């Protein structure tokens, strides 16, 4: 399942992102997130993504973030969460 991440992933967007990721995990298939449209992202959403990455690992699901936009890649690197974009 490929999910396109929205442009704005600020703190208020974190709850919806968490729900989306939970639903995707519950569906059981590999999860691919398209981060090409992300223009803004903060800690709240990054930590939800990190939690999802950990959850996928536990559930042995394939979890990938693809096409990271410059902002996404920049912020993930800044927060030393490069594992999110390493795959």
């Amino acid at each position: 399942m490929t999910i396109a991440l929205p442009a704005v992933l600020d703190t208020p967007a974190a709850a919806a992102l968490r729900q989306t990721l939970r639903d995707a995990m519950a569906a059981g298939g590999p999860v691919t997130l398209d981060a090409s449209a992300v223009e803004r992202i903060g800690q709240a959403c990054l930590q939800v993504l990190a939690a999802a990455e950990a959850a996928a690992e536990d559930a042995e699901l394939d979890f990938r973030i693809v096409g990271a936009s410059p902002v996404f890649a920049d912020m993930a690197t800044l927060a030393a969460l490069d594992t999110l974009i390493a795959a």
Partner: protein
Amino acid sequence: MDLDAIQQIFFQECEEGLAAMEGNFAQLRDGDRDSETINGVFRCVHSIKGGAGAFGHERLQAYTHQYETLLDLIRNGTLELTPALLDVVVGAFDVLADHVAAARDGDTPPADAAMLERLMAAAGGDTAPAAAKAAAPAAAPVVAISDDFDDLMSMLGDVAQSEDGADAANGWRLRFAPGAKAFEHGAEPLLLLRELTMLGGKVTTCDRAELPTLEAIEPECGYLAWDVSLPASVAEDDIRAVFEFGDPSVITLTRGDAEPAMAEDSVDALFDLLDSVAAPAAIVEEPTPPPPAPAPAPAPAPVAVAEPVEEKAAPRSAAPSPAAAPAAQTIRVDLDKLDRLVNLVGELVITQAMLAQRLAENQMGGISELSDLEHLTRELQESTMAIRAQPMKTVFSRVPRIIRELEGETGKRVRLDIEGEMTEVDKTVVERIGEPLTHLIRNAVDHGLEMPDVRVANGKSAEGVVRLSAAHQSGRIVITVADDGQGINRARVKAKAIEKGIILPDAVLSEEEIDNLIFAPGFSTAAAITNVSGRGVGMDVVRKNIQALGGRIGIQSREGFGSSFSLSLPLTLAVLDGMIVTVGDQTFVIPLSHIVESLRPDEVALSRLGPDGTLLDVRGAYVPVLRIADYLGIDGAERNATDAVLIVVEGDHGQAALLVDTIQDQRQVVVKSLEANYQAIDGVAGATILGDGRVALIADVDALTSRGGRFVSRSALAA
């Protein structure tokens, strides 16, 4: 306090900082090259940079960084502050002001590319050759000779990285754990991380230990923490300043203590190199996209860049006044609270007056407690008003920029003289005087001053002078805008007024009356409408704005020698000393500041003039007698001057004698605005509540005497 409110404070401090910088520039231009002055400018820019980073205004931050770099070179003596360099610094200041305004209003940042280039050229262009020369001897084995500062910096980076252990071990270690409340009030911890990297920091690890499972995670709670390493060369204050606007407990800052044992020789060589180049710290922290090389620069650490955060009760003031060492402690107060206080004190004054009246009615008016109370009330009122007082400096500090822009637009050369900028006046006045003042200054430069060649031909200096002054004069503040230009061309003004149908072709007008024609709506004498001024919508609006503040505007002009516009404004709009008089069944207050004397005239002192005009002989000078009752339509008032009291007042248009029935009292009254509560009435300046609870109107002496003035000139013509 949420992030918006903190940001609001930041922008207020930016304003203060910019104003302080403008003051510093004036000192620099006057030849005062005191290191504290340039330090003052540096500190302001540095503070703005810090705040810009904290609130994510990246363009502003990037711009201030470049600006700061140049200023740092100047303050540490690497660059000499030549007039040309000062021009760059001042020019950059204008762009900075635009940047701040854009960041505050959420507008597009100004185009700063050209200015950034000038800043870089000024900073790099002048230092590079010196750097190369100085670098040559020390650069022997490790670093090749280079005449390019950028290359030098990148080489520094390479070398420093190869010695990674040394500086990292000796540098700062920062633990940043924003905790569960990381996003409170809209905060974004990543912006602070970003700022740390701008300082040369490197985020080494992200601690996810607290991060719960996806099921358990609370989206609005923070769980991450970071370890950041920063070069030893970064000042502790600079690191702490990043967290200035937040909770200081989220960081733990420690200094690595390992000896920089490895490859000491090559590091020493670098130190020598840097010493000889005297590269300032600001260049070393250049924000290259990958974390910059943690160069252990022994260059002069930023001196007095930031005061220790812990010591401050209030957020850091961005405007340390030049050489003002012991800064007065201040707090910021919400203006609403202040206004409530002012209002309450006003009510207290009224209540005190009522109490005095009641006690007097019961023959207890003389008790000493009452006079104590009156004394205290008045002192309390003055103190309250003083809280609202602000120096005119906040307005005047914007003027140099206006002048600079006008010079650019008109090609004229202007010297600005400012006097009395510390004169204090009520905040409302300060806030609302800016626009009219700007207009007057634009007029002075655009219409008043001549082009340099014309001035020289007329035997004047090529540089025109605009003088701006503020002073207290008998309970009012007088602000003057004067120029030494061509003065008002009265023949042209009159011709224009006739052409516009403002006056009749055969009107006989005094010079003063002609000057005042420029305040007529729709009047403009500019031969060509310019961008600067002269759309003919100016001076009438200026006068209206001044009048709305309870002020008057006067002109003095001498053809060929210049014009002077003086604005006379009340210090506070809230209280005035007045004489309480009776006219018919009404009670009026006549402001004491206008009263010259009061008298009950003899028949011989009165002369009739025309059908219903009367003149009062005041020791040889004739002043018109004005019946307030006639002007304001009051019935039952005394008509016979010999049975009434005449109060001689001085207004904008000369003296006049106001005819009233009796004088009741003289006391301080609290002004209540008629405009705010009802509507403006010509001849009435406001209202007040008297001790007995009745409302009394405050006479607008200027409006009344201006009618008298017209009456006299008409009569004089008839005679």
